[in-house]
């Protein structure tokens, strides 16, 4: 009945960067040579870690590679924290805690719709699925990553400016796929929330189950601070992966998010700051 709760700990574990892989312009993967938290259970696809850069900050990052003796996260340089990350060298150290959150459930045959750096959150999922169809879009050719990694997969690429693949949005391609292909049993998505909202709506329309990984401001990662609330859901522990069924009941999905202070703002304003 009573568990010895005071044994439960969550302290950043300082680990040495074993190698850094430059995936693309301003996008780097940081590899660590060991299991997460010394446990030998691999993280679930869709789970994330909190990454501490001493003296700078600590932020959530999806686990983008996970093998028997290595894991990595892939950061895209956008602001102070991720810019500081890109200045790190092999041998530098970072504090890691986690893995946190609930990941994706595996179901085949599947289609994965990824937008931008969102591909990092579905990368280990793609590794576990059987020949998924990947729809992957970025603003332009420069942001595309993992193309070598997935060269054996069927991949439909879109760019907003048409510099690579099809000009347009991932959801344009998804509509075509859904209206022609009847064998897909599950759709997974991660990327800009506006895109995910459209994906979920399409899946509802075509009655195909789907799962999406949500991004919210996170501070603790373990369900204490309340910063990541989306309606009554605590994104860091109830998610970040939610089913389309759950998401379509959440009025804040695709509409609002909370700033670091907890103030609720429109999604557009959230991404501006």
């Amino acid at each position: 009945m009573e568990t010895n709760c005071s044994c439960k700990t969550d302290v950043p574990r300082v680990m040495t960067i074993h190698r850094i892989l430059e995936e693309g312009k301003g996008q780097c993967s940081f590899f660590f040579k060991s299991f997460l938290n010394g446990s030998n259970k691999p993280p679930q696809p869709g789970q994330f870690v909190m990454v501490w850069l001493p003296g700078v900050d600590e932020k959530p990052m999806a686990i983008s590679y996970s093998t028997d003796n290595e894991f990595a996260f892939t950061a895209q340089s956008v602001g102070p924290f991720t810019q500081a990350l890109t200045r790190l060298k092999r041998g530098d150290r970072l504090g890691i805690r986690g893995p946190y959150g609930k990941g994706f459930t595996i179901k085949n045959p599947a289609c994965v719709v990824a937008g931008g750096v969102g591909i990092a959150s579905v990368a280990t999922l793609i590794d576990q699925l059987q020949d998924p169809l990947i729809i992957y879009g970025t603003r332009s050719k420069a942001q595309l990553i993992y193309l070598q990694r997935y060269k054996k997969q069927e991949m439909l690429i879109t760019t907003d400016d048409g510099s690579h693949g099809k000009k347009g949005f991932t959801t344009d391609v998804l509509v075509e796929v859904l209206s022609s292909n009847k064998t897909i049993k599950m759709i997974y998505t991660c990327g800009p929330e506006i895109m995910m909202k459209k994906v979920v709506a399409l899946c509802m329309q075509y009655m195909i189950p789907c799962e999406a990984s949500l991004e919210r401001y996170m501070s603790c990662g373990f369900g204490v601070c309340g910063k990541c609330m989306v309606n009554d859901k605590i994104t860091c522990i109830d998610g970040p992966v939610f089913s389309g069924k759950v998401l379509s009941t959440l009025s804040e999905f695709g509409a609002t998010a909370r700033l670091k202070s907890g103030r609720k703002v429109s999604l557009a304003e959230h991404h501006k700051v």
Partner: protein
Amino acid sequence: MNITLCGIRLQNPTILASGILGVTKESIDRLGKKGAGAVTLKSLCHEERKGNPNPTMFAYPGGFLNGVGLPGQGIESACTEFERLDDLSIPVIGSIFGYTLEQFGSVAKKMSSLKPAMIEVDISCPHMDYGQVYDADPALAAKVTKEVKRNVGKIPVSIKLSPKIYDIKAMAKAVEEAGADAITAINAYPGMVIDLETCRPLLASKIGGISGPALKPIAVKCVYEIYETVKIPIIGTGGVTSGKDAIEMIMAGATAVGIGTAVYYHGDEVFLKICEEMESWMKEHKISSLDAIRGCAHQQQKK
């Protein structure tokens, strides 16, 4: 298991402590459905605050350390978002703080417009400058109490005290005399944890507040001493993670128990868990109501 606290009916004596979830209406409703007797909001002040950079919290063996730095949307924005607090499934305690006496008053006034069941005044954050001013000075604490009371009408007011003080009895006495309706004891205790690999404190704020199991004996001692000193009810807060911990707080003299860090250890099921464990302890010991054991640790001392 229901209790009355300053005239407010609670379905059970567990109250979510300030700063753990309790930031949105839907989070309050969620915790109500999960069995909390009442919910305390995260402390708010006159301005929007980002709080400290991360890392702001972690659990080390034996306890929890946080240096969140009181982030919050500010009272104005909260008033717009919440609209009112008396239409929720359970009683809500609005928590406030300020840097000056006037701010304590004006934030309290705005909070009272949301119609919370009670207002809790946080004069004791362990890692904020303002906390260092008010948390150990009975005369100042009395001034804050009076200022808040003057601004909130009939809404009961609880003053949240810090354990970081030599004479907590004098503090308790001072706020009772100034008109406080209850005392919340205690806030977190200042502490630090250093990472050996990087030779630096783990928290970005360096110093944070210790909560959870490591805090419990300190909290029990504070509640015990306050109970000896004042007549007003005490919300015993600090390290309660099991039914037995809650019973211990009540034996020390608490009317209700605050529960914060235990949400980290057990999730939001913790309220049900603690209530069930309290009930089974009471059954085992043939105790029919909490009134029968409230403050009993004192009587046994007198024998």
